[in-house]
């Protein structure tokens, strides 16, 4: 990430408000995020917003910055766009702030920004304002990105509090990929694996559900804390029980193997392009077919149901007839010792 050629690395002057900063913004950011609102260069973006609007913000820090299936930039766009999508809001406008460590390679920054632009195209959202700060070497871990986003809510009432007994639970693809990919990259495991992160924009899948008028009760992208965190949050917020069939959970072989090695559970691992839906059982098959029609959704599955028993708890049923709780993941993920 760091370069030794000063011409090819971010200098403190790139954040100084002068000529260098201006060049970086115009030659890199404006070029990649090209749109009329951004290039008007006003103090604030003037937007046209009508009706109910969703607004979200998120900061992105990840090590390593580049991983199999994505990088911090793709993550920063997909993450914010997905937060809007989960409220059935069409992602429209994003802000984007970079905190860059002095010495960061311009080429890497270019790769990050270009992947952001290409991810934006998948939902049609635009970056309309932003900020750049450069901090001295050692004050940041390469680059941090903050994105905020607004979008028009297409369908109201989708909420964590709206889950009802009898609802089916769908996951949009195999779980745990992002967490497992990052873990493999971070720990430099010598295991040979083609595992890639699921990092992706979810809006196209959500849009097809909304267009088909599927009566979704709740949607949530399962990011940090994974499926376990989402389902526990839902069980608590809606005061219902949720039962998951272990045999129905889609999990890639590589993710299962990694979980075995370290003693992790795939449903505790992070995802960056996987969402969970609660909806009336009778609409589950139709929703499943719509999701499976998308490349990222072909492993989608109905994994469980909402019950009136065990309010506030998530229960996993094993294929051999026993059951146990799926608890909230706790603390940092540390491997078991023996």
């Amino acid at each position: 990430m760091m370069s030794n050629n000063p011409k090819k690395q971010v200098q403190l002057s790139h954040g100084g408000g002068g000529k260098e900063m201006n060049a970086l913004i115009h030659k890199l950011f404006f070029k990649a995020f090209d749109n009329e609102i951004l290039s008007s260069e006003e103090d604030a973006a003037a937007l046209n917003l009508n009706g109910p609007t969703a607004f979200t913000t998120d900061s992105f820090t990840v090590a390593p910055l580049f991983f199999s299936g994505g990088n911090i930039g793709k993550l920063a766009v997909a993450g914010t766009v997905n937060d809007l999508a989960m409220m059935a809001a069409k992602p429209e406008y994003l802000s984007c702030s970079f905190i860059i460590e002095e010495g960061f390679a311009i080429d890497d920054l270019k790769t990050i920004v270009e992947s952001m632009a290409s991810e934006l195209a998948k939902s049609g959202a635009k970056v309309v304002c932003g900020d750049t700060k450069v901090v001295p070497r050692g004050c940041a871990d390469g680059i941090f990105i903050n994105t905020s986003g607004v979008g028009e809510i297409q369908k109201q009432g989708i909420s964590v509090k709206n889950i009802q007994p009898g609802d089916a639970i769908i996951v949009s693809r195999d779980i745990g990929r992002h967490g497992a990919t990052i873990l493999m990259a971070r720990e430099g495991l010598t295991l040979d694996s083609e595992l890639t992160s699921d990092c992706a924009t979810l809006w196209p899948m959500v849009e097809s559900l909304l267009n088909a008028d599927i009566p979704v009760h709740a949607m949530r992208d399962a990011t940090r804390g994974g499926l376990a965190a989402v389902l526990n949050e839902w069980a608590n917020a809606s005061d219902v029980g949720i039962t998951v069939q272990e045999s129905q959970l889609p999990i890639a072989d590589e993710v299962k193997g990694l979980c075995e090695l370290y003693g992790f559970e795939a449903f505790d691992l992070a995802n960056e392009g996987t969402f969970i839906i609660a909806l009336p059982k009778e609409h589950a098959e139709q929703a499943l077919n719509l999701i499976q029609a998308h490349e990222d959704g072909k492993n989608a599955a109905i994994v469980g149901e909402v019950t009136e028993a065990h309010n506030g708890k998530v229960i996993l049923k094993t294929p051999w007839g026993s059951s146990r709780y799926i608890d909230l993941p706790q603390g940092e993920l540390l491997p078991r010792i023996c």
Partner: protein
Amino acid sequence: MLELKQLYQGFREPETIARLAEQIKQQAELVKQRDPAEKINIMEVCGGHTHTIMKYGLNQLLPDNIEFIHGPGCPVCIMPKERIDHAITLASQPDIILVTLGDMIRVPGSKGSLAQCRANGHDVRPIYDPLDTLQIAKDNPDKKVVFFAIGFETSTPMTVVLLEQAEKLAITNLYFHINHVLVPPAISAVMADPAVRVNAFIGPSHVSVIQGSEIYRFAVDNYNTPVVVSGFEPVDVMESILRITTQRAKGEAELDNQYTRAVTPEGNTKAQELVNTYLCVREDFRWRGLGPIPESALRLRDEYQHRDAEIKFADILQHEPIEDHKACQCGDILRGLCKPKDCKVFARGCTPDSPMGSCMVSSEGACNAYYRYSGVTENA
């Protein structure tokens, strides 16, 4: 190349597990017919087995005359507070980087945990592979790096390989705080208690991969208990329970090896030789919950004293025993005298978020496994 799925495939077949459960039931019925009051109280010595039993709900598949008693075989659970305090004292020095494995950093000593120590700005690094410590020592020549070594016979060879490498590469800033403990003396300590209820053992297979299955022979001979060396997958554990139950039904007590895919009677003699080159048996070691057990742990041999953190930093380390919180019953749980839910503070004052006792901290600990997984069967 090893494919990751080979690690679990074939050992979680629902039909196999159901068939084993049925066979266990038949054998347990024979025991019941002989004596309705007779219980088969199986101690799974190792926390890994506790985890398998609770995670896969295997206990729910068994007849009521079989009971599990969770043993002292979790290296995190049995670490006495004064040893954790050593780690914290060392980590609190400005020129020391303390390196240790996994969730050891969450266990509370008398002055908080290593995780809290790290949050206070000290350099504590959890690692996945002890050999990573070499690089840390190379990258930080102006610091002293202490490897806080923990674990049973299974993980000892990894510590010794690290030590061997440090010697070969003449890395002078790497020290070892050795807390490696031994399974057989712990079994003897459990069985020495007059209140003991254990009458069969599931032996940890990973210990036997190194030390061989014969290390449990004494338990069969001295206590007339069946011992089955078992793998960690659900099918492994169920098959081992069947073998134990079958022995009990016949009134036999034998040493049996279920995990023949990796365990031999004599074990990995090369690894044993390597361990013996660098380490020797301590006079005694205090176990959390069990107290001092003679010859139950290892230390560096005298010729490697120059790497011994307990000697190098002797002037800042306290050896006074520090007792657990009075309300905490980890000791009784580790000896099989009570269950996690019998403890007054279980899931009240003591939770994985804020553990009072070590059995709640470690993902291998009995209390943690009960907290995370159990309580479903009554109403599910």
